[in-house]
C-alpha cells in the first residue's frame, strides 16, 4: 500500500470527511511531510471507491458547491488494520535490530 493511500485511509478511520478535510488531516497526521494535491487525492479516492475500501457517507451543498463526505467501509477498516499491523511489525523489527548495533557502537 502506498503511503498516500495509507494516510487517506487513516484520515477516514476516525470518521467521515470531505476532500479538503482529508488533505488537511493527512498533512497533520504526517507532521506536515505529506501534502496531498487534489488531483492525487481524487485519483486515490476513485480507486479506493472502486475497490470497495471507502464509500460516500453523505453529500451536502456548501456555498453552492457539492461536498461529498467519505467513510471507511468494513473492508477498508480491515485493510487498514492489516497494513498498520504490518508496518508496526516492520518498525519493531527495525528498532530491535538497531538496538544491539547501537549498544555495540557506544
Amino acid at each position, binding site marked *: 500500500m502506498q503511503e498516500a493511500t495509507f494516510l487517506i485511509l487513516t484520515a477516514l478511520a476516525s470518521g467521515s470527511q470531505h*476532500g479538503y478535510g482529508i488533505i488537511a488531516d493527512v498533512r497533520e497526521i504526517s507532521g506536515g511531510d505529506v501534502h496531498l494535491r487534489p488531483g*492525487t487525492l481524487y*485519483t486515490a479516492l476513485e480507486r479506493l*471507491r472502486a*475497490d470497495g475500501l471507502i464509500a*460516500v457517507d453523505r*453529500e451536502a*451543498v456548501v456555498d*453552492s458547491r457539492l461536498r461529498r463526505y467519505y467513510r471507511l467501509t468494513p473492508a477498508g477498516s480491515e485493510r487498514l488494520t492489516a497494513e498498520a499491523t504490518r508496518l508496526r511489525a516492520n518498525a519493531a523489527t527495525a528498532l530491535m535490530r538497531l538496538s544491539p548495533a547501537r549498544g555495540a557502537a557506544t
Partner: protein
Amino acid sequence: MSARAARSTASARNAPAETTPPEPHAILERRYRRLLACYPRFFRCDSEDEILAVLMACARPGQRWPGPADCADLLGSAVRMRLGPGRSSPPRAVTRAVRLMRVGAATEIAGLVIALATASSVQSALVRQHVTFLNGHWHNLLLLIELAVPIPFGLWLWLAWANGRGHRWARSAFAGVFGMYTLIVLGKLAAGAASYAPADLLVVGVQWLIGLAVVLLLFSRSAGTFYRHQSMPPAARGG
C-alpha cells in the same frame, strides 16, 4: 442536489456581470475546468464539481492562474486515470485473456518470420499446383503479407488494452474478429494451404487456438461481472 445541478448553480453564481470584469476566482475556476477536461468523462460527470471545490478552497486569495505544481498534479492524475489500470482490478480470467492476446500479437511477428523463411518452398509448391501462378503474383503476395502484419499485431494489442480496462465493446469486437478469423482459416484449409504452406498453417492454428481460449475466458462468468461493473458509473458501483 446532483453534481451537475450544483455546477450550474455555481456557474450562475460565478457568472460575470455584463459591465464588470470577471472576478479572479471566476477566472481561476474557468482555468481549472480547462485542466479538468483532460480527465475521463465518467470521472468529470461524477466528481468534477467536487474536485473543483477543493481546488478553489486551496487557492490563495486573488489567485488567477493554477500553480505549476497543481497543473502537473492534475495533468499527471488525468493521464494515470486514462492510461493506468481500470477502475477496479480485472478478475483472473480477464488477466489471462489479456496475456494471451499479447502472446497472439507476438505470434504475428513469428508468422511473418516463418512466411519469409519458407517463402521459396511455398512459392515453388504454388507454381507446381497452379500453373498460371507467376513470380509477379508471388512478389505481390509477399509484399501484402509484410505490409499487413502491423494491422493484426496492433489489433491484438489494442483489444488486449481495451479488454483489460473492461470495455464491453472490446469483448464483442474480439468475438467478431475471432469469428471472421475462423472463416479465413476454413477458407485457407479449403484452398489446400496444408499442402503448400504447412509451417504457416501451424502458426495460423496456434493463433486460432489462442483466440478460442481468449473468447472462452472473456465470456466466462467472472469476466461478465467485471464488464458489467466497469460499465457502471462509480456511484452505481456502491461508492
